């Protein structure tokens, strides 16, 4: 289908790029991206992908907007406190760009629904805030052959990598298994700067745009690390782990498995 006049104007800064053009914009409009977690990473990722005209955005999040979220989760605003995050995010996206179809799951992404969920999308963005969820998304995407962007943030630092079937290390190649609960701090315990979440979430959106349009080199086989204090960006080449439990030649993980989140997070989640 041809782009309407309004679309040509709305997406003119995309279309004018020779790497994207009308053809690339049509790919974005036909693209489907799932964002797991409508928070610090998911908020900027969802907003940039909505603005770019990605046709379908899936949002999965079980939480409601809390006042302490607004320091970084820019898809939500003060009147949204108390609303389900997916409902608040949907409203922001629809106001930003009515071209985008928003599909929401107000609930946890777990072993029993993750494969079904990712199956409907071209690309997945991991915007979750805990290791069990990050490993679950990795395993599900590897098992389903679904390209995805991983990211993690803490304090002033963040890192991200992209996995595409057959290309480079998966998250489990980098980190074999989640650390024991509470061995490594989460943002809730350690803090995080909002703009840092914006940097990493925007990088994840960038990867989704590149994947959908086929432009440039993805962060496959590389871990990009960002230290906001020193303003150092590095990309570290990472090899596949020959005996990776999920992407290796003799995998032992054959289906997604739920792992326990950190105890303090569970308590905090219940009181949130």
């Amino acid at each position, binding site marked *: 289908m041809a782009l309407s006049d309004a679309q040509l104007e709305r997406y003119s800064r995309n279309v004018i790029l020779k790497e994207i053009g009308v053809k690339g914009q049509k790919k974005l409009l036909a693209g489907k991206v799932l964002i797991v977690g409508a928070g610090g990473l998911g908020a900027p990722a969802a907003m940039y992908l909505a603005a770019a005209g990605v046709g379908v955005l899936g949002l999965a999040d079980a939480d409601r907007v809390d006042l302490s979220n607004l320091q970084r989760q820019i898809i939500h605003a003060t009147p949204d406190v108390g609303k389900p995050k997916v409902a608040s995010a949907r409203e922001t996206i629809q106001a930003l760009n009515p071209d985008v179809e928003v599909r929401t799951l107000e609930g946890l992404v777990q072993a029993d629904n993750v494969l079904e969920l990712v199956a409907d999308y071209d690309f997945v963005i991991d915007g979750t*805030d805990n290791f069990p969820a990050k490993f679950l998304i990795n395993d599900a995407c590897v098992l389903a052959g679904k390209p995805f962007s991983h*990211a993690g943030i803490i304090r002033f630092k963040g890192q991200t990598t992209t996995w595409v079937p057959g290309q480079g290390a998966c998250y489990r190649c980098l980190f074999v298994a989640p650390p024991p609960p509470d*061995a490594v701090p989460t943002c809730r315990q350690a803090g995080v700067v909002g703009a840092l979440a914006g940097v990493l979430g925007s990088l994840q959106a960038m990867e989704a745009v590149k994947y959908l349009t086929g432009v440039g080199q993805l962060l496959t086989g590389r871990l990009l690390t960002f230290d906001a204090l020193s303003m150092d960006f590095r990309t*570290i080449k990472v090899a596949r782990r020959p005996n990776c439990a999920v992407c290796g030649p003799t995998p032992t993980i054959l289906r997604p498995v739920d792992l326990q989140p950190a105890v303090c997070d569970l308590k905090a989640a219940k009181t949130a």
Partner: protein
Amino acid sequence: MDIIVSGVKKTFAEGLTVAQLLIEEKVESPEYVTVAVNEEFVEGEAKAARILTSGDQVEFLYFMGGGR
């Protein structure tokens, strides 16, 4: 000998092992840090056994669990 640690060239005494480098570099909670030498993972007991040589490129990968 010179070793590239997280992209920075540093000088160490000969015979340094990966386990000793983790201490020298004051890596926090090293048991939860992935170590790669020349893009090869060095794990568990191999950290104490692996002697670094001049020109080795060492990377530390840290868990970052936040996102929301």
